[in-house]
């Protein structure tokens, strides 16, 4: 089974103070790992290492035991600011990866339409992306990542800029997409409920230097996919209890 491994990673930018110290984290296909932690604790740095945008000062980044040398289409990334290409139509944005891979126009269009349908934007392929709403653009960013058929999907606060209602709808969408693919998902968020609702495993980081302080296995997402309503899940006693213990971990409080 494909796996992405961060093995005893330390990182400091340009010889400065360490941003990450001895961090180890694994991601397998079928997993949904969510990273939470206070601002500046190195979450984005961690994701950039996994994506190959940044190389570690020490330690190794591996995909299936082979060292990662840089970014690659096996690890697609969804950004907080959607990072779409405004000179391309929505469909061309989605099919950007296939285009780089030399796939023909007709097949690209088929892929784009299919991925747009998955993210709930059927028929919007010909729109210029600057005529889409923020929520729609974030969906296009997700569709673009999915069109590369990634083994791992890395997302850095993709829902951070959205309003509360759009955000909840997008959480359901992410869960749904995750349920359909074999890919391993890694998501960074500031939302505690979001983390609990989506994750199979939550990783809590703390700053100074950035490190992992707690790992928590949860299954609320699976319950949602099994048909239980989102509201019932979020109101359930075990969800509330998990939220409290997660908050304790984030703010390094002793559990009451």
């Amino acid at each position, binding site marked *: 089974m494909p796996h992405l491994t961060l093995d005893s990673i330390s990182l400091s930018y340009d010889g400065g103070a360490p941003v990450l110290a001895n961090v180890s984290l694994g991601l397998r296909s079928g997993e949904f790992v969510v990273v939470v932690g206070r601002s500046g604790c190195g979450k984005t740095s961690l994701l950039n290492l996994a994506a190959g945008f940044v190389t570690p000062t020490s330690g190794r980044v591996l995909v299936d035991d082979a060292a990662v040398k840089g*970014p690659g289409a096996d690890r697609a990334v969804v950004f907080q*600011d959607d990072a779409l*290409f405004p000179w391309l139509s929505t469909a061309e944005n989605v099919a950007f*990866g296939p285009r*780089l*891979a030399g796939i023909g126009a007709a097949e690209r269009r088929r892929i784009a339409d299919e991925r747009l349908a998955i993210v709930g934007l059927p028929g919007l392929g010909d729109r210029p992306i*600057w005529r889409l709403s923020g929520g729609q653009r974030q969906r296009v960013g997700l569709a673009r*990542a999915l069109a*590369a058929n990634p083994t791992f999907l890395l997302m850095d606060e993709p829902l951070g800029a959205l309003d509360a209602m759009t955000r909840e709808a997008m959480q359901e969408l992410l869960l749904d997409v995750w349920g359909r693919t074999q890919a391993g998902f890694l998501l960074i968020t500031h939302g505690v409920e979001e983390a609990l609702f989506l994750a199979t495993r939550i990783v809590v980081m703390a700053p100074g230097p950035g490190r992992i302080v707690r790992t928590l296995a949860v299954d609320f997402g699976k319950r949602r996919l099994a048909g239980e309503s989102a509201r019932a899940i979020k109101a359930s006693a075990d969800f509330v209890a998990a939220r409290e213990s997660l908050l304790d971990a984030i703010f390094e409080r002793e559990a009451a």
Partner: protein
Amino acid sequence: MSLDLAEAVLAPADQAAPAKETTTRTKRSIVPIVTALTLALLLGAWQVAATLKLVSPVFLPAPIDVAHQFVTVARDGFVDATLLQHLLASLGRVFAALLAATLVAVPIGFAIGSSPIGRGIFDPLIEILRPIPPLAYLPLVIIWFGISEPSKILIIGIAMLAPIVIATATGVKGVATDRLNAARALGATKAQLLRHVVLPSALPSILVGIRIALGTGWSTLVAAELVAASRGLGFMIQSAAQFLVTDVVIMGILVIAAVAFAFEAAIRLLERWLVPWAGKA
């Protein structure tokens, strides 16, 4: 007006915004009217000064004479060529220079914007070249390349180089890191990044550079056409001045101004067509 103000003060912020916008729009629609009035006034003053012979016609011919010369030169020509032929000669030079300058300047801008070595090589050269007025290097170009057609194009082209290089480099440097990373994570090679991300991202900036360069080049034209041209708007003005045919001089100046205005409008159309997304995403 006072009612508008009262509403703006009383209404919550988000409702006050449209009211403010309307005011700005009203103000803006006044601008063309004021412009038209100013031009009409100037033209009127000019005609009056000429009719009353406040100034000798050799110095200030009447607007009507200038208009008449426009028709005459367009039909019968001046110094062996019609106005259209002079215009086409000038346009030909400017566009040949623009093509050459763009082909040279865009790669240099890419080099400056994307690599420290490129910056180290080209940045000082462009900084030295940029402030030199074209008339200063004109004699050198004549010594080196003679008074042929290419040396005229070269003079205009050199003047166009710096604006395009600087605008291209700015555009290349300004490409959002996320955008580059997004493409890299989708498997883009270095060459694909340049072709599919950096170039389109920098295009709005490059077009701004071309617009500025066209203005600079056009104003260099008269200087370039002093170099023994036998056709061109600059040459036409120059010849007319030697014979003290002042109405042709003024007519030529107005044509040059009109063409500059048309360039500006054309590039803005081109921008709307090529980069409709600029500033929106």
